[in-house]
């Protein structure tokens, strides 16, 4: 058994690439050993800015000899075929042997692969690893780069140490020969150092002022920075990203604390922290009061002769940065946000969706509409938010609808204004936050400045979801406009491509709605947002405003229209426009309605993704959504929760089994009476094809439901179990339907639960496929009625298990 050391020395590797490079080195090394049939034992991979190192323990000194057999053509095959087989396997004809394969004599080549010395395997592996190594960005360099094919590395590669049990593994890559010499710290060590073996590697480098283990450097920085802060009576603001980055920038990290002019603390703390972090990679500290202190911690790559000199240099750089920041902070405040906002007309949001000012106009109207339509109300947003959060927004408590609508519109009009400020120009990540600060400085109401600050939230899953009503209105309007806008210009996400972050916008919409229990028809709301976008587009293209939403969605406007749309969203069919409208309008309407359908489906797909994290089963969401007609996310989820609670009980599991059995029998028997009256929500066929008016669908569905729950009178005396099911159904079906109507979903489930025992007994005791035709028909009708009663609560056919 032997230990192997590989070190690849190069010029400074970007800090952000080092973790990936370690993984790549491990992957390629394993690939090479696998190919040689060697399972590596323990692997250690280290990185510094200047080197990647790998230590593999307990490698065999040689690979095992292997004997492989290859089956060739049968005896008597044409010479060409046999010669070809020999060439392929690198053997001569004389080396072939004949064997009986199922009664037929066949040529075999036996290829003996002798064991190879491990040093030879490694000598071949190293150039292959370097050649195949994948960097996020790589380059050519030096005299060899006169040829296009010269080798590539992240920065010029300068040395290879390769030692197997202390012996050099000889190899060469583009003029660099392997050896045992490497270099220590750039400044604390001079000349080459010689490595004896894998065991001595880390210690030899440490003696040359290089800590090769990146984890050890990270720990030194983490602890050293915290200690430096503590020694100054401060607390370090922990920042693991900075720890890792600094560990990737140093071979001998020395955290040093410095102070900056207290006067800079007038600038918002986020700005100071960002300046220090992004531009200089410094940590910041807090005082005992929890406020940002006038201190920073930088990480030097040397043990400086006089630390004060290094600290002072860093202090000056930070001071220059902070005076820039303070200049922006003061400069920006000289102009009111409303005036900044005028400049948004110069920034393109998207070529087809206009400038940011155009978007702001749409968002402002939509935010107001959300309030005026009682979707976002003074009381509602935040009401479900738990005590901690709702207590933070007392201001909304006594707010009237009118005030809320005004504030939502005002905040929306100002929410993007900070994009043209100097500060956000310099630090785009401060968007929103700076607008909030500037609004507060201007003396705008706190609800408005908070909304400006937080309207981008939530950014991704796990981010805090706003609950203050003004913020909710602006945030929701902003994201609805984005989603509708890009879908309407056919820029929806495809596969891994989502350049406009629409999936994130979708998740944000869902989170806002659920967190704040906003009752609204998703389809109607998206339609309103789409109207705003389409109005803009038509105005730009035809210089004419669309007077009402009816111009765009002639038959879809209004809540009934939205429901029809939703139902229609599932069978792949057009929503039919007003037949009296001009053909051009009908065509346009169809296209826009199709996109609206896509938006609704997209959001429900996002809902499934989002709810998976919360442990809600996607099949249950499907089961409720598939019924159609329900696009109120809050109500839908309440139903899904009740369903999930139910299907995990014993009653639920058994009822599901009973349902599936009933459905299977009905399917097998080709039972179509109920099928024809029920509106399926999926499938290739379009049962609504003849129903031109989507409004008709509701009527058809209603009749179907009525018929389904009414079991036709029997022409014979039912068996006891049959009678029991009929009676149970007569009670349970209307009870479940009523409970659903009243949004008492647990009660609906309880009603279904009463069917479990009767259906089980029915299947045990009653023969559905009776000899007598009338019995058979009646029993099938009974099962259909049972199935449909269950269906009123959820589409159980979509439930897994």
């Amino acid at each position, binding site marked *: 058994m032997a230990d192997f050391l590989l070190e690849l020395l190069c010029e400074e590797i970007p800090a952000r690439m080092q973790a990936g490079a370690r993984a790549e080195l491990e992957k390629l090394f394993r690939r090479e050993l696998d190919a040689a049939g060697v399972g590596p034992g323990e692997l250690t991979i280290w990185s510094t800015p200047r080197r990647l190192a790998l230590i593999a323990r307990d490698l065999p000194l040689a690979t095992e000899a292997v004997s492989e057999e290859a089956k060739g053509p049968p005896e008597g095959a044409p010479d060409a075929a046999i010669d070809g087989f020999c060439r392929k396997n690198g053997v001569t004809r004389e080396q072939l042997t004949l064997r009986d394969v199922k009664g037929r004599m066949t040529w075999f080549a036996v290829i003996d692969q002798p064991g190879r010395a491990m040093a030879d395997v490694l000598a071949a592996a190293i150039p292959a690893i370097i050649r195949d190594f994948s960097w996020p*960005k790589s*380059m*050519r360099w*030096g005299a060899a780069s*006169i040829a296009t094919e010269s080798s590539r590395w992240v920065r010029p590669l300068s040395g290879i140490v390769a030692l197997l049990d202390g012996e050099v593994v000889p190899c060469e890559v583009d003029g660099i020969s392997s050896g045992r010499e490497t270099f220590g710290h*750039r400044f604390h060590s001079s000349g080459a150092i010689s490595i004896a073996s894998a065991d001595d590697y880390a210690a030899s480098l440490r003696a040359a002022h290089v800590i090769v283990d990146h984890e050890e450097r990270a720990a030194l920085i983490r602890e050293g920075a915290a200690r430096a802060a503590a020694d100054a009576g401060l607390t370090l603001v922990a920042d693991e990203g900075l720890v890792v980055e600094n560990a990737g920038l140093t071979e001998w990290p020395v955290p040093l604390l410095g102070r900056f002019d207290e006067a800079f603390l007038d600038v918002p703390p986020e700005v100071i922290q960002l300046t220090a972090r992004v531009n200089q990679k410094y940590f910041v500290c807090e005082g005992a009061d929890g406020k940002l202190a006038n201190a920073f911690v930088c990480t030097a790559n040397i043990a400086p002769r006089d630390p004060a000199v290094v600290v002072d*240099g860093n202090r000056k750089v930070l001071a220059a940065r902070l005076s820039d920041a303070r200049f922006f902070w003061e400069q920006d405040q000289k102009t009111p946000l409303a005036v900044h906002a005028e400049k948004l007309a*110069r920034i393109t949001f998207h070529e087809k969706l206009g400038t940011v000012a155009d978007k702001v106009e749409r968002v402002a109207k939509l935010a107001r509409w959300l309030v005026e339509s009682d979707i976002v109300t003074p009381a509602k947003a935040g009401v479900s938010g738990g005590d901690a959060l709702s207590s933070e927004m007392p201001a909304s408590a006594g707010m009237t609808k009118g005030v809320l609508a005004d504030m939502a519109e005002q905040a929306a009009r100002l929410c993007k204004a900070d994009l043209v400020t100097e500060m956000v120009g310099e630090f785009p990540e401060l968007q929103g936050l700076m607008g909030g600060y500037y609004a507060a400085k201007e003396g705008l109401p706190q609800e408005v400045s908070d909304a400006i600050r937080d309207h981008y939230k939530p950014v991704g899953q796990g981010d805090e979801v706003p609950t203050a009503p003004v913020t909710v209105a602006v945030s929701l309007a902003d994201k609805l406009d984005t989603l509708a806008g890009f879908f309407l210009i056919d820029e929806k996400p495809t596969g891994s491509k989502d350049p406009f972050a629409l999936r994130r916008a979708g998740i944000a919409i869902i989170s806002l709605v659920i967190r704040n229990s906003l009752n609204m028809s998703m389809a109607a709301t998206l339609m309103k947002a789409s109207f705003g976008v389409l109005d803009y587009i038509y105005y730009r293209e035809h210089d004419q405003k669309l007077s009402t939403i009816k111009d765009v969605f002639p038959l879809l406007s209004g809540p009934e229209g939205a429901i029809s749309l939703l139902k229609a969203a599932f069978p792949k069919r057009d929503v039919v426009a007003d037949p009296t409208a001009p053909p051009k309008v009908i065509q346009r309407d169809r296209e826009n309605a199709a996109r609206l359908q896509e938006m609704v489906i997209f959001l429900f797909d996002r809902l499934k993704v989002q709810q998976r994290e919360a442990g809600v089963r996607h099949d249950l969401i499907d089961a409720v959504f598939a019924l159609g007609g329900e696009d109120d996310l809050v109500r839908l989820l309440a139903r899904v929760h009740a369903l999930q609670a139910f299907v995990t009980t014993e009653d639920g599991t058994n009822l599901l089994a009973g349902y599936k059995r009933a459905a299977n029998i009905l399917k097998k028997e080709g039972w179509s009476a109920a099928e024809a009256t029920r509106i399926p929500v999926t499938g290739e066929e379009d049962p609504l094809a003849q129903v031109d008016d989507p409004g008709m669908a509701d009527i058809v569905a209603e009749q179907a439901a009525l018929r389904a729950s009414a079991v036709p009178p029997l022409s014979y005396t039912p068996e006891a179990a049959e009678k029991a099911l009929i009676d149970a159904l007569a009670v349970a079906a209307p009870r479940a339907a009523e409970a659903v109507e009243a949004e008492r979903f647990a009660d609906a489930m309880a009603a279904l639960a009463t069917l479990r025992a009767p259906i089980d007994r029915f299947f045990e005791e009653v023969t559905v496929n009776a000899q007598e035709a009338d019995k058979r028909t009646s029993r099938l009708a009974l099962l259909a009625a049972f199935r449909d009663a269950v269906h009123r609560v959820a589409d159980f056919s979509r439930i897994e298990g």
Partner: protein
Amino acid sequence: MSADLAFAPAPRDPARSFQDMILTLHDFWSAQGCVILQPYDMRMGAGTFHTATTLRALGPEPWNAAFVQPCRRPTDGRYGENPNRLQHYYQYQVILKPSPPDIQALYLKSLAAIGIDPLAHDIRFVEDDWESPTLGAWGLGWEVWCDGMEVTQFTYFQQMGGFDCKPVAGELTYGLERLAMYIQGVDNVYDLAFNTAGVSYGDVFLENERQMSKWNFEVAETGALFDLFAKAEAECRNALSAGVPIAAYEQAVEASHVFNLLQARGVISVQERTSYMGRVRDLARSSCEAYAEKMAPEWQAKYPGWSLV
């Protein structure tokens, strides 16, 4: 020789004199075999525009040069009131083709020559890749930090004018004022000692910064600038069609600077900006391409087997 005529130069004092710092860099890079060039006699935004960098980065022939290039950034003007920002400042450029294996060591030695001791100051190579869409060029490298301050841009050119650099050149761009402020321990650029005879940077440039900032931002006649831009563009095309790409390149540099002036005057809207940048890019790239294509046969004759693409 008569004793009256004998001249013994004073020892350089880079820690106390801006010009001595420059002369020390000249001494250092001259000793490495670089030709020491004078600045390009045109207004430009960065030393990279000097033909000794752009055009010489193309082709197979070795090329080692060092020079100071005055840079003009009209929008960075602060009327002489900002201690760090100037609309006119100096870059020190070194171009080494092919990039030598010890280029980092040479660079660090040059810092030591002007008085930066790497055990007293924290020198770091921090990832900073370079890209100039205008020149169809990009490279990988670092910004070099000295105690947290960026003092040099260090780039391995990978492409220029849309062509792979074969071989790759290493480019060093020292920010001279910053380095000098650091070495002299001065917080305001105008307080730098220009020489050891009492002349400050402010004595030389303060009034210039005031007047030029005013001209850049407030005075320059924009009609004339638009006209200049159009003329430079036309002349670039004229030179290209006449097969003199170096002359065309000069016109591209001119157009680029005039565009920067128009920007400072605030007369180019966001939408127009993209279009103007595209026009400048087109001129610069066409000139680089035409130069590379014109020279390619000669290069191939000298370096059999070498190809432009």
